[in-house]
């Protein structure tokens, strides 16, 4: 099991290298001069030359790429143009806030999705089922940048139950976590329902029923466990949407995480910071997908063998 996990993590390295290359190329191959984008076209030639030197843009592309990769290996993401500090430090300082928000959102999503999905699958065709499907459809259609402000208007401004924005107490976490987690809850509810329904039609469930196993035990011990595979896969894939969603959620709630750092850096044209944030978020996503594969292998050894054979 450990070997499988390590093997799967090693397989993320080529993906990470490709992702890093893409981020590097984005700055260098885009039409137009990145220095113009950062400074505006009206700046002095000397200033532009200085920035070009600072960014290393005056060197050949291959040299720049080599230096970039070497830096990544040593954990060096470059220096912020605005603050002068190391990008890795800036990102590391914001990482706990984003991790806290993501984990809380994930908890919200799971806490909503499992009971709703299971209940819907247990009573297909009833109002409970239709209600959960409707809620799920609504959940994927409500954009977070609207849900967030609506929750603020209702719960923070109208009823004054929760703080409007910022980070500090657990109360600060509630609204951002719900905003970010709601969309994922909707997707997981649908997936759980569909997956459990499929398992309930299997022969082993009929056998268990014939042997007199209770309804709840069949649902939780047999159907849910086997239904978890696809749910975990979707969880891994949707984790990316969750991470990207932090950019918006952190902007709405003035949450001091990597997402806000990214948007601030974009507004200040602080390119090394933008690059660092994008890389770190992408790396988290790639690792999350690898973990989902490992968890799947643990849940179902058959898919583990398949995961070990497939790459990426």
């Amino acid at each position: 099991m450990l070997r499988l996990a390590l093997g799967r993590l090693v397989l993320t390295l080529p993906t990470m290298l490709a992702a890093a290359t893409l981020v590097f190329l984005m700055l260098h191959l885009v039409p137009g001069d990145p220095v113009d984008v950062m400074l505006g076209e009206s700046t002095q030639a000397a200033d532009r030359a200085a920035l070009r030197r600072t960014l290393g843009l005056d060197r050949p592309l291959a040299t720049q790429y080599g230096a970039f990769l070497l830096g990544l290996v040593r954990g060096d993401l470059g220096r912020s143009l605005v603050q002068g500090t190391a990008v890795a430090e800036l990102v590391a300082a914001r990482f706990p806030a984003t991790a806290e928000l993501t984990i809380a959102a994930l908890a919200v999503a799971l806490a909503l999705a499992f009971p709703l999905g299971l209940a819907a699958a247990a009573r297909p065709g009833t109002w409970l089922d239709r209600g959960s499907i409707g809620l799920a459809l609504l959940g994927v259609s409500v954009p977070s940048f609207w849900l967030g402000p609506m929750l603020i208007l209702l719960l923070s401004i109208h009823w004054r139950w929760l703080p409007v924005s910022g980070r500090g107490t657990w109360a600060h976490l509630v609204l951002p976590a719900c905003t970010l987690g709601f969309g994922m809850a909707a997707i997981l509810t649908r997936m759980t329902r569909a997956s459990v329904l499929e398992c309930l039609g299997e022969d082993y469930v009929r056998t268990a029923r014939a042997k007199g196993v209770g309804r709840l035990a069949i649902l939780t011990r047999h159907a849910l466990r086997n239904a978890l595979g696809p749910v975990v896969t979707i969880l891994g894939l949707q984790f990316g949407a969750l991470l990207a969603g932090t950019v918006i959620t952190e902007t709405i709630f003035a949450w001091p995480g990597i997402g806000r750092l990214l948007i601030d850096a974009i507004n200040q044209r602080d390119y090394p910071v933008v690059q660092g944030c994008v890389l770190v978020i992408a790396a988290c996503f790639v690792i999350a997908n690898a973990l989902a594969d490992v968890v799947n292998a643990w849940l179902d050894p058959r898919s583990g063998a398949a995961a070990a054979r497939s790459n990426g």
Partner: protein
Amino acid sequence: MRGSYRLVVGGWLIAVLIVVALGADRLAPYDPGAQALSENLAPPGARHWLGQDALGRDILARVIHGARVSLAVGIITVLVSLAIGTTIGALAGFAGGWIDELAMRAVDVLLAFPGLLLAIALTSVLGPSLRNVVIALSLIGWTGYARLARGEIVRLRERELVEAARALGVPEHRILLRHLVPLLATPLLVQATFGMAAAIVAEASLSFLGLGAQPPTASWGAMLNDGRAFALVAPHLTIFPGLAIMVTVLGLNCLGDGLRDRLDVRAPSGI
């Protein structure tokens, strides 16, 4: 009939949206750019049904014109992604070998990023504008269609119809274009419906972050961004554009679900 209900609801919502977008100039009660600074942030009332924004512009007019932006971005993005994705996916699936390997690795690299994050990064480099939003979303969006087209072609190319066509001496490119690609239409249509919902949300997200539509363009996402500073005193700035996005995306998701069930496609869900 399976999926009928959602098909009808989704179909109607999207039909209304298309009519609103096409007839925006006639339907909007005011010019979406006309300012009335003395009436700024006025709440919904008899003259301005949905109220006025910080510059006194009519919100109803801007929501109506915003439909045009959302629909245009959605349609263009989907068409470009569909064209790129289907071409690459169908060629990869039909040719196999290194072409297939190369195409699928390119897809894998792009899928190593959360889509919206890549769109944010791309638009930040290209500069904020609706045109660049469409470019960024198309550069990312083709991967889904490519995977779908490739999978279908790989499944179909072993079929007897291909063997029969070959036996009759039909050239390879003709087999692919005349016999196989038309069979992709149904699954791609379903995928495109969900893809359009995703593109509309992505445009609104980018505009909300200030990376998409620039003032004075009436985009729903940009309107939400404008409304943030006034959420306390003028919540109507936030409520209506958000409702418009929600209804549109709900309509497209319903339509996609309905089409998938009706056409019995194994396409992935939009969610």
